[in-house]
């Protein structure tokens, strides 16, 4: 019998709490959009004439290029590993996720360092053949290829799940109706997986829009780099805010498409992983499959990591000094406190969803976890402005000594919280779902009060989810660049900041050491992901 709960709408404390968390997402959006309430004609005219056309064109080209790039790489590899059998498939199945550990900006500076005019490849070519002219690597094409190699795992991961649950069955059904395998793939399997593929591509595009580090390395002007310049070089908050608000428009379009795809996924899901026979590739097609997967893995992970190690090793002795450990410590402290904040807020938001009887709660939760879509540069601006305003208010009331917020970690931690709440909320919420209502009721009927229920049922059952949430958030914050760069208080340089500073001076060797530390940390979530995947697919 369904346990229909009373559906009377009564605002409650849990709802108020969830609304407060959701407000953290809405405030930066509102603040940046409010920049248009006081349009500065001169500024706008300047932006519109000299900056915007190029930014918009760059962004659109980049978006289109990366969408095609991650789509082709991600879908092809997902199909091969999910449905086909070829030499090395088991290895590639998980190894192709490894590039997730490599932030795009790290891949970016390795690519530049390797292929630039003064890099080893061109130098070697010149030594061997005299003056040769390779296409300019710091180009639109270069950025698109780099980001596609860095971001394809989003599409690969999600499309692989789709193909694994329905791909082979769909193909067999199509074949039984007289279609060739090839027609079956294009007419049935691919269209069926469309919502999944779209969701993956949208995630990759959100990362593209949010990316700052890669754009900076490639000198490719997009909104994030323009916001950064307006912030640091022009010291113009309004310009930064107005650029941010345009970027938000792009982002919201992505969000709408992504959420729609997810809704379609819910209806399109056909349940269990099918245990059908894989398509055994042989001969040339097997070689092609292994070769393609191997090439992607080599370019996206093996070459860059090897190059990082080659750069880092010779200078290990001199660079592993007190300053390096300072960056390391700052990264740990910030990622640690950010992860704690995110997990604590995730727990509150998840319990609010469980305990509240408000019908609007799922929507509030959705808004509260939308921050993952917003570029760090936007959040930095959108949260800095209100905090600075609050600071000035305090100074007016209580004197200069009261203005402590701006120079503190508040803005940075708030921005981390908004951006990474979804990362922590996912595991916590699904962990909480496993504590069914009847498990709670059982503990009550056995005489346990709220306190002992939390201590003896909820905490032990949630422990693994909390650890997963904290780890994922920790690593994401460690990799994070624009928020840290723009809002860190004086003296709070982290590994990511060090990577940015060294790469902007073209010192690849010195950027390699902190980058390696970030990559090693980044492998942990890949391992978590792989373990989950193995469990889900037997």
């Amino acid at each position, binding site marked *: *019998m369904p346990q229909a709960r009373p559906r009377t709408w009564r605002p409650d404390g849990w709802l108020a709490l969830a609304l407060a968390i959701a407000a953290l997402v809405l405030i930066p959006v509102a603040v940046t959009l409010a920049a248009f309430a006081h349009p500065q004609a001169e500024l706008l005219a300047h932006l519109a004439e000299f900056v915007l056309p190029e930014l918009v064109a760059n962004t659109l080209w980049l978006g289109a290029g990366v969408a095609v790039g991650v789509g082709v790489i991600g879908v092809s590899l997902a199909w091969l590993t999910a449905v086909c059998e070829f030499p090395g498939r088991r290895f590639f199945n998980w190894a192709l996720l490894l590039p997730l550990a490599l932030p795009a900006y790290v891949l970016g500076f390795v690519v530049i360092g390797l292929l630039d005019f003064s890099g080893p490849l061109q130098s070697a070519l010149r030594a061997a053949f005299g003056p040769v002219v390779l296409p300019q690597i710091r180009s639109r094409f270069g950025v698109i290829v780099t980001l596609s190699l860095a971001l394809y795992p989003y599409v690969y991961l999600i499309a692989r799940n789709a193909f694994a649950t329905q791909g082979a069955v769909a193909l067999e059904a199509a074949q039984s109706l007289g279609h060739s395998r090839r027609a079956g793939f294009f007419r049935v399997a691919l269209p069926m997986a469309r919502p999944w593929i779209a969701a993956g591509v949208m995630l990759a595009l959100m990362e593209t829009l949010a990316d700052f580090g890669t754009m900076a390395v490639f000198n490719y002007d997009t909104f994030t780099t323009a916001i950064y310049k307006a912030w640091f070089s022009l010291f113009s908050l309004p310009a930064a805010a107005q650029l941010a608000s345009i970027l938000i428009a792009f982002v919201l379009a992505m969000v709408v498409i992504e959420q729609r795809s997810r809704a379609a996924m819910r209806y399109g899901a056909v349940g269990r992983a099918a245990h059908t026979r894989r398509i055994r590739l042989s001969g040339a097609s097997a070689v092609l499959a292994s070769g393609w997967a191997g090439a992607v893995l080599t370019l996206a992970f093996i070459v860059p990591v090897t190059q990082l190690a080659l750069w880092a090793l010779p200078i290990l002795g001199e660079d592993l000094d007190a300053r390096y450990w300072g960056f390391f410590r700052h990264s740990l402290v910030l990622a640690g406190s950010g992860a704690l904040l995110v997990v604590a807020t995730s727990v509150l938001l998840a319990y609010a969803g469980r305990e509240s009887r408000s019908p609007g709660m799922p929507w509030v939760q959705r808004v509260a976890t939308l921050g993952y879509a917003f570029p760090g540069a936007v959040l930095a601006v959108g949260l800095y402005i209100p905090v600075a305003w609050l600071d000035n208010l305090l100074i007016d009331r209580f004197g200069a000594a009261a203005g402590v917020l701006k120079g503190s970690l508040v803005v940075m931690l708030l921005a981390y919280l908004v951006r990474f709440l979804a990362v922590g909320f996912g595991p916590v919420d699904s962990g909480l779902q496993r504590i069914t209502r009847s498990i709670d009721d059982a503990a009550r*009927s056995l005489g346990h009060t709220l306190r002992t229920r939390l201590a003896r049922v909820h905490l032990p059952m949630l422990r693994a989810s909390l650890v997963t949430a904290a780890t994922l958030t920790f690593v994401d914050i460690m990799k994070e660049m624009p928020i840290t760069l723009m809002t860190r208080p004086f003296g709070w340089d982290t590994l990511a900041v060090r990577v940015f500073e060294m790469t902007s001076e073209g010192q690849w060797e010195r950027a390699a050491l902190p980058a390696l530390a970030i990559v090693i940390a980044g492998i942990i979530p890949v391992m978590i992901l792989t373990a989950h995947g193995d469990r889900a697919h037997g």
Partner: protein
Amino acid sequence: MADVVLDSVSQSYGARAVISDLSFTLPQGVIGCLLGPSGCGKTTALRAIAGFEPIQSGTIRVGGELMSRPGWMLPAEKRAIGMVFQDYALFPHLTVAENIAFGLARPAGRAARVAELLALVGLEAHAHSYPHQLSGGQQQRVALARALAPRPRVLLMDEPFSNLDVELRERLSLEVRDILRREATTALIVTHDQNEAFALADWIGVMHDGRIQQWDTPYRLYHEPANRFVADFVGQGVLLEGRVVNEHQVEIELGVLNGKIPVACAAQGCDACVRDCRVDVLIRPDDIIHDDASPLVAEVENKAFRGAEFLYTLRLPSGQRALSLVPSHHDHAIGEKIGIRLAVDHVIAFPRP
């Protein structure tokens, strides 16, 4: 004394009444059952007794102590009422022994009680297993042992066997009855499966539309259903058109039936129309006996082989249909005409609506 007494309990969600005016008494040591189709309110009643749902009118008492009244309820954790959940709700992070010990607050005697219950449900070998390592039937028994461990005043069971396959269901329900007897537990079970109810319960309340239609022993529910719903829901049977001859006799097309008790028609405030009152008479499959010597014949319209017997669907001369259970060596073809006679002890008749 741990009688469970519900006195005109009502509960509704918005405009929809889930239980209305529910009253019954479950005496100490008795196994009761609320039986009804899904959505009849039986689970809500159970959860109200457990203390998970408030009530809007009436009172719930256990052993004379007030548990719930409108606007107030004793918290579930203070009631000492055990519950076995439909999905068992075992704690996945605890072993079998730890699950059973979960409700034992005091360390004194805890180990002994856990051992006792493990023996009672036959799971000594699995004391240190985790729930996911057990079969469905074993999980069910852990849930039962866990609920019984603190010696609850009443044990509630919500569709306890619905997640098990049919064969296991029958065996386990007998086992559970045995276990409840040995622990002398007052128990209330909720189910939609009448075989389960018959196997387990001393008293059964048939529920429909949030009301108890009849609170009675299984035997009387089957043989003396109080109304059409109970007659239809419990057991198999058909209603045949009939005419009241006098207080103890009803005529149907197969002859005149002599009841030992006054026909229900008269009991339902229809005094004026006792004679010639038009009624529907309940005829169970075991009321019609196959007899080749009988002058009454009916045509076999359908048959279902049940092993020891056939369940024949018979077409009577008037076109009405009736069921008959016949020993299975009487194998008749569909369309064949066979002799039948009536063997009716109690005449159950309902006024024609």
